[in-house]
């Protein structure tokens, strides 16, 4: 799945200044799907992604009055979404006996199960390989591979230099290929 990178939308930024409610509505309609899939790839379960997505927009709404920069609306939302997803993963780590490093056992341990997953064997392999990456590498890989985010935007989301992100993505790809090959 390749998604086109969303560029900052000046119309939404302008509308947020003149009509906050309408601007926010447009923001939700425009970004909810992109942010959902970004969160979902990190937290895996639909119900967790649903919670994190709603928290993302509620937090965005709470601080949208202080949002000034027109050019970083897109990266700002991705930062909030990433933080929400990581907070949820950490919460799960503290409470659950099973950690997210194998998709099938994680689905089996959840109330939701695998009802919202229909990947074939290759997809299952890829997702399992991604889950074995360190947390930061996993986020970098997902943002680059699935969301096709530029390193410039990614550096704003993750507050990391572009060079470090490129190296991180390179290592992630090598690790994933090695894991797939070894299976």
């Amino acid at each position, binding site marked *: 799945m390749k998604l086109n990178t969303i560029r900052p939308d000046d119309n939404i930024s302008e509308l947020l200044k003149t009509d906050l409610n309408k601007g926010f509505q447009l923001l939700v309609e425009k970004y909810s799907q992109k942010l959902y*899939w970004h969160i979902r790839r990190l937290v895996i379960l*639909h119900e967790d992604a649903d919670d994190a997505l709603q928290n993302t*927009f509620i937090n965005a709404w*709470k601080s949208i009055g202080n949002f000034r920069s027109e050019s970083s609306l897109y990266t700002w939302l991705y930062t909030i979404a990433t933080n929400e997803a990581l907070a949820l993963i950490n919460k799960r780590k503290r409470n659950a006996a099973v950690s997210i490093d194998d998709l099938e056992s994680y689905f089996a341990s959840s109330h939701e199960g695998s009802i*919202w997953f229909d990947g074939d064997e*290759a997809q299952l392999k890829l997702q399992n390989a991604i889950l074995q990456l360190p947390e930061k590498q996993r986020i970098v890989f997902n943002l680059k591979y699935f969301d096709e985010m530029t390193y410039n935007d990614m550096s704003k989301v993750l507050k990391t230099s572009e060079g470090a992100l490129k190296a991180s993505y390179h290592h992630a790809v090598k690790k994933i290929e090695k894991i*797939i090959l070894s299976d």
Partner: protein
Amino acid sequence: MMNKLNEIPEKNPFKVPDNYFEEVNRKIITAASGIDREVLKVSVYNRFKTSFLIAASVAGLILITYTTIKLLSPVKVNSPVSEVLHEISPDSYLNDIDLSSLEENASSLVLSEEVPDVSKKDIIDYLLNENVEINDIYAQL
């Protein structure tokens, strides 16, 4: 055997319930509209947080300084301030007097040529009751 990422078909393996995005968008917008007022209060406080803290600190310093000065400075007996405070205290009999009637009576006395018939003895008794030094009374009379 696959050994390259680009050999894996580009397909999203995750699914969502039907009409999920329409419903979640509606849910988010409804929830956000419910917390509008609270948000405004918080953002106003956050925006002026530094000013509030500085103003509170200055007010606190002034209060502490004033209290310290008041506690350390000696209390003056029969000072003009204490007399004034006594006169305007809630228990003062002056509070029961109607000011307009007082002004009328006072003006009638000032304009009148008549002087009330009061003996020296009554005046001395009155002044002694008011704790005026007897030597001062004799000096005046």
